[in-house]
């Protein structure tokens, strides 16, 4: 479908395939496990020298662009690319016909077209791609592609998708996944006190700041090198190779600088497209989404509607929980399967529940596809179970913390999904700790700097109508991949003398997305091998898979792989020492030297000479199991717990909020790097705050209304209060260093804690998040279907401003 030959280059005279130099891996020095260790990429990042995937640049590279469907649901009748192909500066125009291999992709279920054919199922679905010599030329070429659509009625909600007469969006039907958890005898269970509630969570966006981007470079032999920001190089590689019809080793991926991820980079975006364009043109092709396109280019957090009923004894002991959760999976599967399972297993919260009946449904619709985002199914469930616990406490006239303490789950008990609660599970401890954090001092409202009142510099109150509220919540999350997935990571570690000093090189494919894994890998190597200098090699597919940077799993799984590979090197060294120097004493490594009973016996420089020791280790975590038909099974590897307390001030007349402070207590097993840990907790809470107060992709009739940072609001430095934290280090005996994953728990219970505080201040039920001002002042329990338009007053008489002919 294309001329195939770049303009100005005669056929057969293709320039030699350009190559990119491998980035250097800088040597890091101080810091062992548990110590402060400055991140090695910090200096290039503050200088603006760190290379993100959107900064990649090569001589002669072309710019890729994507044509997307304007309709959420339509048949494609005809496509004509000829006009676009003839444009000066355009080097390739590709459609589904040009996909050389498998025409669909997907991590769990390959149901998503690389480029749509016959039907489009969501607004923004890729239909064609273009490569041109300037991004603007590429954009203009998109306008010249003629696509004739037959527009169909979209299926715009999960409820609609469930209906008998709903159009089937996929051959398998509209039900993507259903998970049932049955525990005890829920059918006949009755209780003295019963509370029921319906809850709703809006669609949140990961909103990582670095846009989707990458550079594909053809190798001149039919293969391709892709420099990319992603969360999991190998699953990208496998899907790209499959769709290109190439062997996995013909597609090599190198991690480029990643500007945040939060789940939104687990699925493919422009990976296959850029490689197709590069192979077609024989030139490097870079693709960079802009912000609007980014909203269409990745999956989001699932919107969810939930109905919960809790029964308890009069003295506050839970008897049963019945719950139905309905998730809108959007047009394609992404990781919806696993989200549905997570939500079902966490629906009861970290409580001892004798009888439970949970049903979690995941539906296909014509809304934007949803998938992984920090908290992954636990976030929605936690908002409901914690709202219910507060409601129950209210019905019982009990203190909400006391109710939670009374029902907290303990090691040795069983979760409703049948798995034994492992040790440690410090639900009570973290609740008590967070409660004991001193309350922020209540400042006088009158005479305050307006910047410290709800509404801030808008200067809308002097303190009148402002009420304070306090709320608590606790949540938990599985760490690592669950339900029988063979979850592993690979580390290759070498030790040699370089420049007169021992140097450890650590090579994994684990994606650093900002969390600080590069630093942690070096800390582990230093700890295990007693050396000062460590270089962490760039992550790429020349080494085995590290699994995904998600599910808070990399410190655990890649951490264990690096630890294991280092231990193997250490054993090798000790064997050498015993052979060459004799002695059976207790050997150890420290300060670049080998010690016996604490005394130096040989330096690593002397021991190693010219030799390089290399060990590769693949660490597989403990086996997990799928759930049976009653939702029972040892499905999860590890559980991490956190509790939050929010203090808010609400202008109850305008529904404006100032979050005064968030306090948290979290069990992390082991503090690996104090500063990085705090950063994860503070950053995770900010995303929880965003979901509570402002973040929602608004979708109407299948169309996104707010695909920009002007209209999709993110917490700024004015919205985010300071965080006080209590960290517990209760070691998990099975995990490396006893650590627990830390990335997700801060995002899970911070949201319901803030909403509980808002309820405390306003007395409103607030059952839908993000909470809007009109809900807080009690005008409406939901946001209006039709948002008010500026200047809309009186439009009933004169017609709405945006509908008047002269507009």
């Amino acid at each position: 479908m294309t001329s195939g030959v770049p303009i100005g280059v005669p056929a057969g005279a293709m320039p030699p395939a350009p190559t990119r130099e491998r980035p250097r891996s800088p040597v890091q020095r101080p810091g062992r496990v548990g110590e402060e260790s400055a991140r090695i990429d910090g200096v290039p990042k503050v200088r603006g020298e760190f290379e993100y995937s959107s900064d990649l640049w090569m001589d002669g590279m072309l710019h890729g662009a994507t044509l997307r469907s304007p309709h959420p649901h339509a048949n494609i009748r005809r496509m004509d690319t000829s006009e676009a192909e003839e444009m000066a500066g355009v080097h390739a125009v590709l459609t589904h016909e040009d996909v050389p291999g498998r025409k669909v992709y997907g991590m769990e279920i390959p149901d998503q077209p690389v480029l749509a054919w016959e039907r489009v199922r969501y607004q923004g679905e890729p239909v064609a791609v273009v490569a041109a010599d300037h991004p603007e030329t590429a954009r203009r070429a998109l306008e010249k592609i003629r696509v004739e659509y037959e527009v169909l009625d979209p299926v715009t909600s999960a409820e609609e998708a469930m209906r008998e007469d709903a159009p089937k969006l996929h051959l398998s039907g509209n039900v993507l996944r259903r998970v049932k958890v049955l525990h005890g005898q829920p059918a006949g269970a009755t209780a003295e006190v019963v509370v029921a509630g319906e809850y709703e969570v809006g669609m949140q966006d990961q909103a990582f700041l670095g846009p989707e981007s990458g550079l594909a470079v053809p190798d001149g032999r039919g293969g391709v090198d892709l420099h990319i920001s992603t969360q999991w190089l190998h699953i990208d590689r496998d899907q790209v190779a499959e769709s290109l019809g190439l062997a996995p080793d013909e597609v090599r991926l190198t991690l480029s600088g990643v500007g945040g991820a939060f789940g939104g980079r687990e699925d493919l975006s422009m990976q296959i497209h850029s490689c197709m364009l590069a192979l077609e043109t024989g030139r490097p092709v870079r693709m960079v989404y802009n912000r609007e396109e980014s909203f269409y280019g990745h999956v989001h957090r699932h919107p969810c509607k939930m109905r919960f009923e809790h029964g308890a004894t009069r003295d506050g002991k839970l008897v049963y929980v019945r719950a139905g959760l309905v998730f809108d999976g959007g047009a394609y599967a992404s990781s919806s399967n696993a989200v549905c399972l997570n939500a079902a297993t966490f629906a009861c919260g970290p409580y001892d529940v004798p009888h439970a009946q949970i049903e979690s449904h995941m539906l296909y619709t014509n809304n934007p596809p949803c998938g992984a985002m920090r908290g992954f199914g636990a976030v929605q469930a936690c908002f409901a179970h914690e709202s219910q616990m507060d409601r129950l406490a209210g019905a019982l006239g009990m203190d909400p913390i006391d109710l939670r303490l009374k029902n907290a789950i303990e090691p040795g008990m069983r979760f409703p999904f049948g798995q034994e609660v492992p040790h440690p599970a410090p639900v009570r401890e973290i609740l008590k700790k967070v409660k004991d954090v001193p309350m922020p001092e209540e400042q006088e409202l009158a005479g305050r700097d307006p910047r410290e009142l709800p509404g801030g510099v808008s200067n809308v109150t002097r303190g009148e109508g402002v009420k304070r509220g306090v709320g608590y919540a606790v949540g938990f999350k599985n760490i690592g991949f669950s339900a029988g997935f063979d979850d592993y990571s690979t580390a290759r570690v070498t030790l040699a003398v370089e420049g007169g000093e021992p140097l450890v090189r650590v090579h994994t494919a684990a994606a650093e997305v900002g969390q600080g894994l590069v630093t942690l890998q070096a800390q582990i190597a230093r700890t295990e091998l007693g050396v000062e200098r460590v270089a962490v090699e760039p992550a790429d597919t020349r080494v085995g898979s590290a699994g995904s940077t998600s599910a808070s799993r990399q410190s655990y799984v890649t951490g264990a792989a690096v630890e294991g590979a280092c231990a193997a090197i250490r054993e090798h060294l000790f064997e050498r020492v015993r052979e060459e120097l004799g002695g059976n004493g207790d050997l150890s490594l420290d300060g670049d030297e080998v010690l016996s009973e604490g005394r130096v016996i040989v330096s690593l420089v002397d021991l190693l000479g010219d030799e390089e020791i290399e060990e590769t280790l693949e660490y597989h975590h403990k086996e997990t199991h799928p759930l049976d038909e009653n939702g029972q099974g040892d499905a999860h590897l590890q559980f991490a717990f956190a509790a939050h307390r929010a203090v808010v001030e609400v202008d109850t007349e305008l529904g404006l909020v100032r979050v005064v402070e968030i306090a948290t207590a979290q069990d992390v097993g082991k503090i690996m790097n104090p500063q990085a840990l705090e950063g994860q907790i503070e950053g995770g809470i900010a995303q929880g705050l965003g979901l509570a107060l402002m973040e929602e992709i608004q979708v109407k009739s299948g169309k996104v209304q707010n695909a920009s940072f002007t209209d999709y609001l993110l917490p700024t430095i004015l919205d985010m209060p300071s965080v006080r934290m209590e960290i517990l280090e209760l070691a998990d005996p099975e995990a490396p260093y006893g650590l627990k994953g830390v990335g997700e728990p801060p995002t899970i219970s911070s949201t319901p804690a803030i909403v509980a505080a808002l309820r405390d201040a306003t007395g409103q039920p607030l059952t839908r998040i993000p909470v809007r001002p009109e809900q807080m002042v009690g005008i409406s329990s939901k946001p209006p279907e039709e948002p008010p338009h500026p200047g809309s007053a009186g439009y009933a008489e004169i017609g709405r401003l945006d509908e008047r002919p002269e507009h």
Partner: protein
Amino acid sequence: MRLRLVVNGEVREVDDVWEGESLLYVLRERLELPGSKNACEQGECGSCSVYVDGSLVCSCLVLAGQAEGREVVTVEGISDGDDLHPVQRAFVDAGAVQCGFCTPGFVVATHDLLRRNPDPDEADIREALAGNLCRCTGYEKILDAVRLAARGATG
């Protein structure tokens, strides 16, 4: 079109600039200065912050042609050769950098704040940096970094 401007103290000349290109685009794609970032390209995130004739601006909102004859300072021009500027040092030391995509913008905006107000209180800092989004840190360590830089500067 041809564009002539001073960037980080050097006179730079670029040819064949399309009139629709932003200053950000020219810096990143034509002048090999990708330090200024492109998180939104619509003036909402501050990741592209630079100085134009001494004023802090979002370079994504400045048309390249508007920068003709002007003096531009980017994040690459903030440090003193190999030595980090105290603001940069403070961001590293305070742990204010995670993915780092917002960092260049925060560095330039903080530089501007401390130039105008060497001893800002918390409300001043929050107000001055309200136009810069960060999705990773929750801002606490960024506040720490600004305070640290201010302490360093006021000694």
